[in-house]
């Protein structure tokens, strides 16, 4: 795994400092508050990555360097404020009872519909490259939430995560299935391979997930995001699988989506009725953060879908 190319002054400073092996990051700290858009998002993505698999060029002890953590916090603060500004909590709804209907009532552009009927091969390959940033670490950010939960919610989350991780069989581990699909489709299954291509919207999706996972304070948002993610997967995965068959994609990639039709029909029920329900029994004050996480999941996916459809010159197709 290699450090990406900078996208502005902040990443210029940050990547230079990480590479040089010094442990004086004041210049990075100084650049952080002025960074905008992609530059800030890429910087945060790199800082989060130190907590996953890291980079060959970066000494491992920098994961907990206080100055880098300070930079991370500045950028996360900014991201969280932006996400919260977009969100209004629905009134008079119960998360466990109403979240499915609330999601079904959400009208957003659908990439799966486009892939199903109209996308060409090149567009689908582009989608895989951009989505690989998340799919190659699928379920990992949510794993950080486990030790922050009470007994029932913890057992419930592990029941779902166990399936994401292949129930002990590495061949069925979901991010491995995606890697196999990429390989079979002629793509490079490494999560830095296409980092230079991903737009702001994809960096934000990944940063939000990592931030929710890394902060105990945001466990409600992490699990709300999980619920919305699982609850918007089964039918779209079916459309994806059929679209891939239409375009002659290899069986490995079709298998990844076919697996998600059935797995996520289970996971959406587990996420809402066991995980979030147990969380609320233990910590009812987290209900608003469940909505915040769920909203953020839908909103960031809408933004990504809009960007891609506009790039391809396609009229929005509402899910």
């Amino acid at each position, binding site marked *: 795994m290699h450090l990406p190319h900078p996208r502005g002054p902040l990443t210029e400073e940050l990547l230079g400092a990480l590479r040089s092996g010094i442990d004086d990051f004041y210049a990075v700290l100084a650049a952080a508050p002025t960074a905008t858009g992609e530059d800030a998002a890429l910087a945060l993505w790199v800082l989060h990555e130190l907590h996953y698999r890291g980079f060959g060029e970066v000494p491992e002890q920098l994961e907990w360097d206080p100055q880098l953590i300070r930079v991370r916090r500045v950028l996360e603060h900014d991201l969280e404020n932006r996400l919260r500004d977009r969100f209004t909590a629905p009134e008079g709804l119960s998360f466990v009872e109403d979240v*499915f209907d609330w999601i079904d009532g959400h009208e957003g552009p659908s990439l799966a519909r486009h892939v199903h009927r109209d996308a060409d091969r090149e567009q689908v390959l582009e989608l895989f490259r951009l989505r690989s940033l998340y799919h190659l670490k699928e379920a990992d950010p949510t794993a950080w939430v486990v030790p922050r939960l009470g007994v029932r919610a913890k057992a419930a989350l592990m029941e779902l995560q166990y*399936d994401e991780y292949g129930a002990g069989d590495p061949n069925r581990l979901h991010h491995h299935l995606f890697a196999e699909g990429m390989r079979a489709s002629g793509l490079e299954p490494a999560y830095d391979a296409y980092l230079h291509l991903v737009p702001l919207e994809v960096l934000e999706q990944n940063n939000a997930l990592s931030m929710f996972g890394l902060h105990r304070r945001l466990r409600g948002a992490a699990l709300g995001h999980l619920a919305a993610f699982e609850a918007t997967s*089964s*039918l779209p995965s079916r459309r994806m699988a059929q679209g891939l068959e239409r375009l002659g994609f290899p069986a490995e990639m079709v298998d990844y989506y076919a697996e998600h039709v059935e797995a996520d029909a289970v996971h959406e*029920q587990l996420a809402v009725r066991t995980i979030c329900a147990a969380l609320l029994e233990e910590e009812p004050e987290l209900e608003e953060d469940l909505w915040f996480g769920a909203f953020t999941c839908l909103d960031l996916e809408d933004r990504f879908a809009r960007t891609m459809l506009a790039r391809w010159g396609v009229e929005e197709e509402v899910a």
Partner: protein
Amino acid sequence: MSAAGTHFEHPDVVVCPGGPMLLRGKHTIEDADGVPHETTRPVTAVCRCDRSASFPWCDGTHRVLPAKLRPT
């Protein structure tokens, strides 16, 4: 907390209102034509609306049915 300790309900079968039935563990389901289907994952969602394209497993189709066609 009581001296008897805490016991959590953890049923093998969970009926989801408007949706599937969750089954924990390994089971074989025989469909209406007598064909057996084995569960393959730790928890399986069995379709109760009869309209899944992956029958007998739930594929989320119940979510797009009008309320009166959803299982209770």
